[in-house]
Each structure stands twice: as C-alpha cells, then as structure tokens.
C-alpha cells in the first residue's frame, strides 16, 4: 500500500514504527543505566585542602561553615548537593551534614531539632534512635546538642546547632558502615568544628 502511494507522487515510504520505538527504548536504557555506570566508573570524591572551609548554609543574618580540624577529608561529589546536604568522607568515616530551615513560626530550639532529627534518622534505618544529648558549643560558641545515634547495631555520633537567630540549623551525623568506634573517636571533634558568622550588611 505504501509503495503504491509512492508511485508518481515522489512521497517517501513511511518509516517503520520499530525505529521510533527502538530510539525511545534506547534512550531510556542509556540514561537510566549509562550515567550511573559512568559515575560508578569514575572517582566520586574531591579532596579537601587542610585549610578548606565548607560553606554549609545560610539563613537570616547568619552563614555557617565547617573547617574540618583533621587533614584527609574528601567531599563525596555524588551524594553532595551544595547548599543542602554534604557528605564528607575520611577513610571509612562519613560525615553527613545537612542545612535545615525550620518552618516559620516554629520554635527551633536545640531540643526540638534533636527530636526532629530522630525522626529524620529513621529514613535510612527504621530502628534508629538518638541517645540522651549533651550540651555542646560550636567553634564560635553557638550552643547545640551532641549525642549518640544507635543504628543497625552501630553507635554513631549526632549533633545539631541552630543558628544564633534560629533561622536555620546545621545537623550532622558522624558514622560510616565500616567505621569502628576508634575511627569515629579519632575525628569526633569535627562535629563541633562548625561555626556561624554574622553576614555583614544583611
């Protein structure tokens, strides 16, 4: 039929529907498998210099940053989304750092944030629970809470520091599937290495 239509009209034969179907299927497979495989095949960490400062987030009149006290920290570039969430690694140790912005009119005290953090920690492990927190101070003296996070048979460290004006907070979990207690103890001061700076002119 198609051939007959072509006769004398100069019209071209319709392309088989197999062609667009193959192209569409190929695109789905290529994108869905190609990028993750390529990402897995290439390095996914960025080494941080010893004096490197990570800008963690900002809100209201303050900005937060983290300067790891130890050398050898790397940024996981696949799992990090600057401005929201950072994943730093050092050997088997992982530091998950999140900048959270409480809803307006919420009383973002360290205690409330600590309770909320227990809920969010259940996203990755339904059995996760936070231990009793202790008062702690960040690098610049901002008050926060630090305590243990019990998850999947391991004990990790958790910390939360609300910014001085309460507009945002920095939450951290120091752990790692293969990290031993000694590994964590060696770098546990990193969770208190965050500091809040008043933003001039704002």
């Amino acid at each position, binding site marked *: *039929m198609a051939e*007959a*239509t072509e*006769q004398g*009209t100069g*019209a071209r034969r*319709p*392309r*088989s*529907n*197999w*062609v*667009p*179907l193959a*192209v*569409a*299927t190929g*695109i*789905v497979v290529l*994108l*869905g498998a*190609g*990028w*993750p*495989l*390529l*990402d*897995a095949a*290439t390095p*996914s960490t*960025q080494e941080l210099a010893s004096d490197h400062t990570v*800008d963690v987030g900002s809100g209201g009149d303050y900005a937060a940053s983290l300067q790891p006290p130890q050398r050898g920290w790397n*940024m996981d*570039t*696949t*799992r*990090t*989304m*600057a*401005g*929201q969430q*950072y994943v730093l690694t050092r050997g088997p140790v992982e530091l998950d750092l*999140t900048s*959270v*912005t*409480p*809803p307006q009119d*919420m009383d*973002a005290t360290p205690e409330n*944030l600590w309770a*909320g*953090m227990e*809920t*969010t920690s*259940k*996203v*990755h492990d*339904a059995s996760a629970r936070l231990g009793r927190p202790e008062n702690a101070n960040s690098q610049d003296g901002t008050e926060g809470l630090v305590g243990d996070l019990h998850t999947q048979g391991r004990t990790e460290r958790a910390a939360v520091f609300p910014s001085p004006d309460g507009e945002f*907070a920095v*939450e951290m979990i120091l752990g790692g599937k293969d990290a031993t207690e000694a590994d964590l103890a060696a770098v546990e001061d990193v969770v208190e290495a965050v500091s809040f700076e008043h933003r001039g002119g704002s």
Partner: protein
Amino acid sequence: MGRAPHEPSKHTPGRDEGQVPSQRGPEHEQETTYGSRPHDAEPAAPGRDGEGAPGSVHIGRGAHEPGQRLPALAAMAVLAAACVIGLVLTWMYASGIVRAYAWPAVLAFGLGVITYLVGFFIFRRIRPVRPPRVTVAVLATVWGLLAATGVAAYANTGMGGLWGQILGYETAGAWTAALTAPLNEELLKLAGVVVLAVAFPRALRGPVDGFILGALVGLGFEVTENFLYALNSISMSGALAPATSVSDSTIVRVVLTGLGSHWAMTAIAGTAVGVLAAVDWRPGLRRALGALGLVLLAMLGHFFFDSPLLGEGLGGIAAKVAFVFLSAMVVYFLARHTYRGRVRKSLSEQGSDLGMRRADAKHLASRHGRNKALARVARPERPEVRRRQERMVEEAEDRAARHAVN
C-alpha cells in the same frame, strides 16, 4: 462524487439547526457507512486526498494500520516493563522516607491525587474537537508517574556525580539541576510520548495529540516529583512540622510554579513527537528541524527554570514560570489553530456532501457546538444523532491527520 452547493431552501429545519443528517437518506444512497470504507472513497478535494491513489485503510479507533500491530504490542511491553522498573526504582528511593513519615506521606499522596485529577481533567479537556481516550491518557500519566520518574532519579544522581567531578562540588551544587534535569528528564518523558505514539498510533497523529499526551506525561511526572519533594522537605525543615512542610512544598510547586512546570515542558517536547508521527516518522528537513527546535525549547525552558539565573526571589521565579508557560501556550495555540482549521474544513466538506449548512457542520468541531445541536433534537433521537456526529468528527479528524502526509 461531487458536492452539492449549499442550498438552504432544501434543508430540513433540523439540518439547519446543526444536526447531522442521516447518511441513509435517499440523496446519499451511494454513501457507505462511516468507519468501514477506505479513505479514498470519501469525498475529497481533487488532488488533496490523493484521488486515484490508494489511501490508507480507514480503521476504527484503537485499531492499527498494517505493519503497526507488532510494534504496538512491543511498545506496550516496553511501556509495562519501564513502568514496573520505574515503580521498583521509585520504591527503592522513597520507601525509607515514606516509612519514616507515614502520615505526612498520606497527606502528600492526597494532595497528589487532587493535583492529578485536576490536571487530568484540564489536559483532556483542552484537546480541541475531542478529548483523548481515557486509556491512552491514563497510560501517559502512568509513564510519567512511574517510568520517567523512577529512571530519572538514578540518571540524575549519576550525571550529577559527574558534574560534581567536573565542576567541583560548590559550582555543581548551584548548576547540577540545570545541567542534568533538562537532558535526562525531558528525554525520559519524551520517550514515553514516543512509546505511546507507537502503541496507539491513532491516538497520536499530529502536533495537538503530541501536546496533550506530553502534558499528561508531564503531569504524571510532576505528581510523583511533588510527592517526593514534599517528603524531602520534611527532612530539610528538621521534621519540626511535617504536615506544614508537605503543604508548603505542595503549594509552592503547584500554585506558585505549577503553570510553568513539567506538564508545560513535556507538552512542548511532545508536540515534536506529533510533528514526526504525523508524517510516519519520516520528516523532511523543515519538519525535522521544527521538531528538534521544540525539544530544545522544552530543554531550554527546563534549564532556565532550574538554573540559579535571576536568583530565588519571587520576580525571578515568576519570570521563569512565565517563560515556560508562555512558550507552551504559543505552541498550543499554533497547533490548535491549525488543527481546528483542518477539522472544520473537513466538516464543512462533509456537511456539503450531506446537505448541511457549512456553518452548522463547522460547529460540530467543538463540544459546545455538538451539544447545542443535540439539544435541538428530540430526546429519543439524540443517541443516533450523537453517533452520526461522532462519525463525522472522526472522519474529519482522520482527514486532518492525513493532511500532513499528503
């Protein structure tokens, strides 16, 4: 088969009022039943419908042209497989967050259902002449809900990691969304429109169909993405007020930016599929460039939307939404105008053959016109008149679809 000139004096009152005359009337004895005859046996302007050359076989809705059945079955298999894989991937991605925030997830799901139903109604409704089949429309949204979203989550993460390596984590944080989503998400959504075009060849035969099915695929994608963003927003706000976080996130994504979001981008790109499908996937250079331009326009809109350009202020967001929405509207009204023109012309020709007034025949191109005509006939006759209307409109849409090929 000549067309009688319009002679109002010969018309019955019913015909003058926009009713569709019976094809079994004495003056149309030579007419065969719509839906069973070959196209080339129908009235056509000389040289336009290829008189003297065999046309394609007129087939009922849902049937396939020769050579289309097997690819259609394969397309259905691809659609089913992609949706199952997408469901599994989405579940792997979201199961933890749904478990942790069970009640807020119910709220987010409820808001998603409302968004879906409203969008589904609107996008089916805005197709000129007739809405798309419910089955096809639902499957379009399912591709967006499951297949495109599930695969995109992993594609974006993988590509984002590469950008992190190339640009450094700080620059990547600002630009990764703009540099990954327009490529991955637009192509994955577009692939769904192509699969639907192969699975249901009669449901996607031109730019208008591409726009509508694209919008429906985008709607599905948007609903799932809104759901995931709403739950993520709980974590990003410290889980202090989960319900507030979910509702705030949904309001921002539906009310504030909804006009210029996924539905609009995929509608633009989907129009390109319609442009290609209309000529049996074998476009000339002009059509190919036009289709490519539409896909690039959708990607550009997505890039602009996700980029840090213009900042995060209300003015910047409004400009981005306006760009995407207005682009979609320009594409829609151009496609709609062309399509309606072809359908009305065909209806006019059919009307002349059937002894209808041209204006009355043209009015059948709109739902309002058809309902108005129906309202003027006695209630017992309405089902039959409605069937005749349907046949005329279907024939007109067939001709409009063939216009590009011819």
